[in-house]
């Protein structure tokens, strides 16, 4: 894992003092809320429905056990004993006091964490593959490249007042586990025929009210030009992205309106200029970072045997664990989606337990996934049964990864001041209704957003649900056929919306259509793609 040096530490420490000063000026009346708002947002502090909410960055989703333990401490000391893991691999606290915020940031800085640029019209936290460094199918560990981007994007003097927020993701395998093509910039690290690493740039993806799948604008940027190319992409956006209409200000609209070819031409011209400016960090810097992401000390010859005699354990292994690049090891997903629970929430006690388990069984490492779960990336198979028993006893042993109960849900109108409808109660009811059919239904990614901003990724759900406000009453639209990953597709709305109970019935009906129509080996998404919308519409509205 990356360790701060004195320079990195000085940056976050100075930031804490800067924010302490800004909060003081606000509380003393020297700056107005209009002036303070962008400052607090760039430190992750929102004013939400019930209180201030603090969003803490988890760069590329990677945490040490000490960092995780600090997240539990903050939940207890400054919040109400829990936190919410988000679709951007961050964690949010819902009950923060403005006067405590500088102290929280100081506590975070003590474990090399921060909330820098987790909001505002700037480059946000860079996300990545939750199995990075463990996945058997990756070309290279993407996290050092994401760390390079983290440093380049932190306090970038030119790009702190962009037309709109800007999200980047970096992956390094053909299986896209980070919804890379639904980001403002998605980078896939690839190797060419000569074995050299390069960056494929996908620009202009996103969800929100105008969902778009990012086109590839350059399939191979040499790796020692990746930052310069990113700077060119951003500069064209900062100069020409729309600022007349907040809803048309994301880069996806610019790329769409200019057309991919013209946007690319402008980027290439800016890139040619910027190559003369010496802004690219030397490869030695990449190598310095990469050395810190070296593989942990795996035990050579560790056994691949597993005692599967406990059927609950065997089900959990088959559902929640994935193959590791190192023989004898496995990557474990801890579901934060107990049946009927609040997706992504974890209590301070659960957070501390996961920290301890990471320390004892996963070389001190955890990951946050964009599906709001936690991963222990490097678990020795010999330790797995004991690990599962501890998880299960703490309510963290649910076997439902990528199943219908593994629902992505934004906080919705229970917490969020932008929401039009509640998301969490819908997720809870669907989970309670259908979890007993989880195994029969198999892989089904269900995603719920409480407004069109799409924090719950509803466009990318095999089944998506969008909450809207219809004359003051919560109403839910159903979408089918969305998917992230290499075959990214956007879900289509089935028709008129439903009330809260109606949407639960509608999801059940959709699963029944699938179960009665599927052919051998088909997932829900495969069946939908084969038979189309009509049979589902017939069942829902016929």
């Amino acid at each position: 894992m990356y360790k701060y040096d004195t320079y990195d530490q000085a940056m976050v420490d100075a930031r804490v003092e800067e924010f302490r000063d800004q909060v003081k000026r606000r509380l003393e009346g020297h700056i107005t809320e209009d002036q303070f708002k962008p400052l607090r947002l760039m430190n992750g502090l929102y004013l939400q429905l019930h209180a201030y909410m603090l969003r803490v960055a988890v760069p590329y989703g990677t945490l040490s056990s000490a960092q995780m333990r600090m997240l539990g401490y903050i939940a207890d000391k400054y919040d109400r004993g829990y936190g919410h893991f988000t679709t951007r691999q961050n964690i949010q606290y819902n009950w923060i006091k403005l006067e405590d915020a500088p102290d929280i940031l100081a506590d975070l800085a003590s474990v090399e964490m921060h909330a820098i640029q987790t909001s505002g019209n700037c480059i946000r936290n860079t996300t990545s593959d939750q199995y990075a460094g463990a996945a058997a199918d990756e070309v290279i560990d993407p996290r050092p490249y994401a760390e390079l981007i983290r440093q380049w994007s932190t306090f970038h003097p030119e790009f702190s007042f962009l037309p709109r927020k800007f999200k980047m993701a970096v992956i390094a395998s053909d299986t896209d586990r980070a919804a890379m093509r639904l980001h403002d910039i998605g980078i896939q690290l690839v190797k060419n025929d000569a074995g050299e690493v390069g960056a494929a740039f996908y620009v202009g993806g996103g969800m929100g009210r105008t969902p778009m799948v990012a086109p590839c604008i350059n399939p191979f940027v040499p790796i020692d030009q990746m930052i310069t190319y990113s700077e060119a992409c951003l500069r064209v956006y900062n100069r020409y992205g729309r600022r007349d209409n907040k809803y048309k200000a994301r880069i996806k609209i610019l790329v769409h309106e200019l057309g991919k070819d013209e946007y690319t031409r402008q980027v290439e011209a800016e890139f040619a200029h910027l190559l003369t400016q010496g802004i690219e960090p030397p490869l030695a810097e990449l190598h310095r970072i990469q050395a810190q992401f070296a593989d942990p000390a795996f035990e050579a010859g560790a056994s691949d045997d597993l005692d599967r005699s406990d059927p609950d354990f065997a089900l959990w292994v088959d559902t929640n664990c994935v193959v590791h690049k190192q023989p004898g090891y496995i990557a474990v997903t801890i579901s934060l989606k107990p049946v009927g629970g609040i997706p992504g929430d974890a209590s301070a006690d659960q957070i501390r337990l996961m920290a301890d388990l990471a320390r004892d069984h996963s070389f001190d490492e955890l990951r946050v996934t964009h599906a709001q779960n936690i991963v222990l990336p490097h678990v020795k198979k010999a330790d797995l049964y004991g690990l599962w028993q501890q998880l299960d006893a703490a309510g963290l042993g649910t076997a439902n990864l990528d199943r219908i109960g593994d629902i992505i849900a934004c906080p919705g109108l229970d917490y969020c001041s932008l929401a039009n409808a509640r998301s969490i109660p819908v997720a809870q009811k669907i989970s309670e209704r259908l979890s007993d059919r989880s195994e029969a239904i198999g892989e089904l990614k269900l995603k719920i957003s409480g407004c069109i901003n799409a924090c719950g990724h509803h466009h990318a759900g095999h089944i998506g649900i969008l909450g809207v406000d219809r004359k003051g009453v919560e109403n839910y639209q159903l979408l089918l056929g969305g998917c992230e990953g290499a075959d990214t597709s956007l879900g289509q709305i089935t028709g008129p919306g439903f009330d809260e109970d109606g949407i639960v019935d509608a999801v059940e009906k959709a699963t029944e259509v699938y179960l009665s129509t599927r052919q051998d080996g088909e997932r829900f998404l495969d069946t939908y793609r084969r038979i189309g919308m009509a049979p589902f519409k017939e069942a829902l509205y016929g």
Partner: protein
Amino acid sequence: MAEPQFRFRDDEPVGDPAVTVDSFGEQSNAAAVRIEPGDDARDLLPHLDRIRLVEVNFPVFGDGRGYSAARLLREAGYAGELRAVGDVLVDQIAFMRRCGFDAFAPDVPLNPADAEAAFARFDHVYQPTTDGRAPIWALRHG
């Protein structure tokens, strides 16, 4: 013309009134130009040898196009005064300084102590710009 509250230059301030970018090319005796957010700073590149003052207007602090305009001019070798005017807030001036601004004329004067603290807040920087500060990666690798 806005008088700068902060100026990091030793030469004599330019007294000329600033003209708009689209009229600057025609006025061969003009030495001061004012860039609005929608202007293309590159239109000025053929005339850099006679420009002594560029004002970049920030009508609202959230419109960040002026940061790119400033960097483009400095990257092209412009060495005259680059002045940020308009809705210039204390929490932005350090970013502006990094992009090449060397004079600041905020609509609402800044508290001098707050401004001094803001300019000096971060000892080091992650990104190289034309301001001459070595980025952290350069310090790490000598």
